[in-house]
């Protein structure tokens, strides 16, 4: 279990409009931090949502998801890697 102080090892972005609500990511997620939303997206599916914490960045949801762009998985960089990535402009997001 993650401690309150520590950043999660990973996080995911779900493109709600690209999700077809098949639920395979929810089934696949080992730390069990995803679920299908009660609400609908514009095409009438219950999209998957990230519960907001607990992601390990393992990526199984990405590989379980049949849609090419519905899920993007991010992993936490070590401080050294983060510095390197910043200098190469590789990192695309910060928390």
């Amino acid at each position, binding site marked *: 279990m993650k401690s309150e102080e520590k950043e999660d090892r*990973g*996080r995911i972005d779900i*493109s709600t*409009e*690209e999700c*077809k*609500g*098949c*639920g*395979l990511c929810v*089934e*696949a997620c*080992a730390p069990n931090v995803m679920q299908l939303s009660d609400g609908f997206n514009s*095409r009438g*599916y219950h999209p998957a949502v990230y519960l907001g914490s607990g992601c390990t*960045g393992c*990526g*199984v949801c*990405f*590989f*379980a*998801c*049949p*849609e*090419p*762009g*519905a*899920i*993007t*998985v*991010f*992993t*936490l*960089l070590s401080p050294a*890697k*983060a510095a390197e*990535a*910043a200098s190469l402009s*590789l*990192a*695309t*997001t*910060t*928390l």
Partner: protein
Amino acid sequence: MYAKSFQRPKSLFGEFSRKSGDHLTTHYCPGCGHGNLHKYIAEAIDELGMQDRTVLVNPVGCSVFAYYYFDVGNIQVPHGRAPAAATAVKRALPDSLVISYQGDGDLAAIGGNEILHCANRGENITVFFVNNAIYGMTGGQMAPTTLLGQRTSTSPTGRQILEEGFPMHVSELLASLEGPSYIERVGLFDNKSRMRARKAVKKGLQNQIEGRGFSLIEVLSPCPTGWGLTPTDACNWVKENLLPVFPLGVIKDVTADRENWNRRRLEVTPERVAEVLGITHATAEKRTATWTDSNVATCYRDPRIKLAGFGGQGVLFLGKLLAEVGMREGFNVSWLPSYGPEMRGGTANCAVNISTLPVGSPLISDPSVLIATNRPSLDKFAPEVVSGGVILYDSSLIDTAPTRDDVEVLAVPATAIADSIGSPKVANIVMLGAYIGLTNVLPKERVVAVIESMTKKKALVELNIKAIDAGIEHASKAHVAEDSWAV
């Protein structure tokens, strides 16, 4: 700081603009395995750095529109024919990464022959075979891989052995051939199977890049819509029902022993091509033959020659020889064979025109010359010879002279003469000698020149010259006296 670690592969379009309507999502149903496989293939193409060099051969089936998604060179082909088209793509572009992506109806049913022979040739391509035991695109009909008892729209009471036969194990069938290098069956039903599938996909592509020959990855893939199940239940159905019939694993792997299975064309210069084709652009002075000032009697000019005998007696060759010499002399010529099975063991005949005028009909129904080397040929064609024409026949083999009295008849014991000078095989050349000896239509030295250019063995050339001389001598004797050689 976070970095994207798993995201849409670059080899898939960011926006599906080839698709009408929604450009955001695929046309596949929720939970369909095609999307997963697309991602794994695209991921592997990215990792191998082959996006620009990839050519995807799109099938007919649910994945007919794979080109909506793959940002690579795309070719869409007829149902089942992807392995044939992919073969030619790979031969044309040996440095490209050629992928044939096919479903079970496409590959195992209508395209059974194409995949069988492509695999047997060991084509250096990669095939992805999506097996979901059903025809998805056309609405859930039975496939060769449909399970026994499985209900589909064309097996409404369930597939029966005595009706539709057994589910077809395509990978095992192909693995029994020597050609394929790598065949593995993977599944898309849980995390572990998906990770294994990713590895197999990459290996299948890597094999091709390394020139290791034919790779096929069969993918047991959920079809929730076709099966009438939720996506999660469909995954369970793969595990519980497909897996016992189609077990996962590497079915064949001889990649370690296979190298240089990529076919490359020879690099040649235009000069070399001309040499191969035997095209000579030497501007040899073109001769135009005429009969005027020649010693050829009018009745022998512009001959329409029918040559006939048993297959193997060399009458077709004799006809070609006459036409070749005629052509080099500057005449218009044609050579037309009777062709087909009758050439093999039966009778053979050909028609040769040698003319100062352009040859109209190459068919000869009214020959002015008949050269017959067996009895059936003489019987068949002697009546067709025009009045005033010439009949030469091999009197060693034909014991009855033609009964016509309105044509010139020369009996030539060609086989006996040929035998006496060394080989009965040159009987046809003896006939040729007799023909030119009788008619002077073609000069002997020109005939010899052509034989010399066609024959490499010196002894054979000499034998042929002896045969021509013997034929000419016979004709000149026969001209003054009744034939005394006849058997």
